[in-house]
């Protein structure tokens, strides 16, 4: 192999694949923000954005341009290096986690064996961006928000990790493609049914982990203005925003992959086109879960802080620990149907 060949195969093609995931992700973040404002508007009996572009669809892009043109303000006595590093530390793990997400039986950027562990590692690193943003801003509100966010993320990570362990016990693999293949069969063979309590806990923990309503005490507007990113403006704020929404979409995709059969079709194979699996099914499922985030935000009042901690430590973690044992019994006695992805 010549040098040029190697460069093309080991550098150019992977970079193109990465762009093929990240560019749609960034565009879908923009459209998700528009959809969120629209949905919440409807739920509040308002119009939502409707001025810029057809049906207001270009609103999010106009906001991006506005944010990018604004000045990034550095607070007095802020730690300059960490202040500018923090948004990057929030964004990079949120993007890097997408490397192992499978969109189809063969469609995955990195089909690694320890894919689930990699995801846990990436999501647990996102908290550095939050803590450092809060600390380096040299602001009381930002510090309080950072402390709340970090305590919450660490607490719910445990419940999330334990609920993933239940999936791993049934599948016997850390590979996300293998996890989807183990769910092949019909709608009732997907893991949402045998792992129903854990499925609910996973998604609620995902909402808490991304600091979204009703668990958004980290940026509770009525108490601490905007929490950890109160001092950030312009493009630095836009990066935090992008990271938060990319994380929300990631949690939606993971809930679909781990518990709802990923790209598998809910209908029998004999039903022709709609019976075949494909990435469109994954997108439909993920869209549903992403919609739940918005629905929660429009419906529930914010949790009190001690209630959040109680729910995480005293309710979710014990239930998941018990369900790991239940899942072990299911696997050992063969109570669940495990597909092979044929």
């Amino acid at each position, binding site marked *: 192999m010549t040098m040029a060949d190697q460069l093309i195969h080991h550098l150019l093609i992977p970079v193109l694949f990465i762009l093929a995931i990240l560019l749609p992700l960034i565009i879908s973040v923009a459209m998700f923000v528009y959809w969120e404002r629209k949905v919440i508007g409807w739920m509040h009996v308002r119009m939502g954005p409707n001025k810029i572009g057809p049906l207001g669809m270009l609103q999010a892009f106009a906001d991006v341009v506005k944010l990018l043109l604004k000045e990034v303000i550095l607070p007095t006595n802020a730690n300059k290096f*960490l202040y500018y590093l923090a948004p990057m530390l929030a964004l990079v793990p949120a993007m890097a986690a997408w490397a192992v997400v499978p969109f189809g039986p063969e469609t995955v950027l990195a089909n690694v064996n*320890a894919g689930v*562990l990699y995801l846990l*590692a990436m999501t*647990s690193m996102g908290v550095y961006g939050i803590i*450092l943003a809060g600390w380096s801003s040299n602001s009381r509100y930002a510090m309080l928000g950072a402390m709340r966010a970090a305590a919450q993320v*660490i607490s719910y990570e445990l419940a999330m990790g334990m609920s993933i362990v239940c999936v791993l016990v049934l599948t016997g*693999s850390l590979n996300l493609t293998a996890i989807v293949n183990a769910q092949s069969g019909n709608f009732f063979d997907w893991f949402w049914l045998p792992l129903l309590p854990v499925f609910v806990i996973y998604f609620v923990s995902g909402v808490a982990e991304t600091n979204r309503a009703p668990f958004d005490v980290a940026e509770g507007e009525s108490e601490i203005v905007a929490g950890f990113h109160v001092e950030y403006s312009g493009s630095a704020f836009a990066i935090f925003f992008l990271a938060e929404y990319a994380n929300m979409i990631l949690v939606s995709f993971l809930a679909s992959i781990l518990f709802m059969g990923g790209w598998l079709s809910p209908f029998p194979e004999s039903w022709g086109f709609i019976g075949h699996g494909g990435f469109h099914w994954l997108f439909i499922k993920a869209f549903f879960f992403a919609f739940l985030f918005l629905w929660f935000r429009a419906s529930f009042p914010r949790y009190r802080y*001690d209630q959040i901690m109680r729910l995480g430590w005293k309710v979710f973690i014990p239930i998941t620990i018990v369900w790991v044992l239940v899942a072990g019994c299911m696997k050992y006695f063969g109570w669940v149907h495990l597909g092979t992805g044929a």
Partner: protein
Amino acid sequence: MNTDLLQLICFYFFGAVAVIGGLMVISVKNSVHAVLSLVLTFFSMACVWLLAEAEFLAIALVVVYVGAVMVLFLFVVMMLDIKQEVVREGFIRYLPVGIVVAVVMLAEMLAMIGVKAMHAHTLGPNPAGDSNVAWLGQALYTEFLLPFEIAALILTVGIVAAVALTLRQRAGVRHQSAAQQVAVHAADRVRVVKVAVERPASVNPAPVVVPPQENAP
């Protein structure tokens, strides 16, 4: 450029970053920067382990140390009001002792690596195919089940001991009972009173009272 050479370059790069990070931990002025340097060191070590094809250990290092332990360290360091002058006072004075300890440790490690190298035998092919996570899991839960469970038990005892040592019962603290809060009925808190509709009585305004002027000049 072959793959071995690339791996070697990567190894030295990650190793150098780890060493520089380690030196920064003990030399930078700002203690938050020191904690972050330690995070960098852990991360580069995880990369080195990935090069050695120990994926599970590498990712577990990131999950456990970078994702959890160092976050708590960062928390503590941010909360503490550390006076840099006091901390750095003895740095030069104790430096010779530190260097001696470091050199002795280096010699011991080199000796151990030398002994290991003499008894080195090449590992057989991975019995579980290409996934060393599955291999490790199989080994831990079959061959090494007893040590594994004992380690788990010791860790649990450690957690209980830490909680028992730091838990102090204070008198006069009023705790919230979540069960009571959840079980409360609207009727316990709000009383709806029916008030009969009536015309507002025409009341004469109170007569204006002119205060008596006391202490008038």
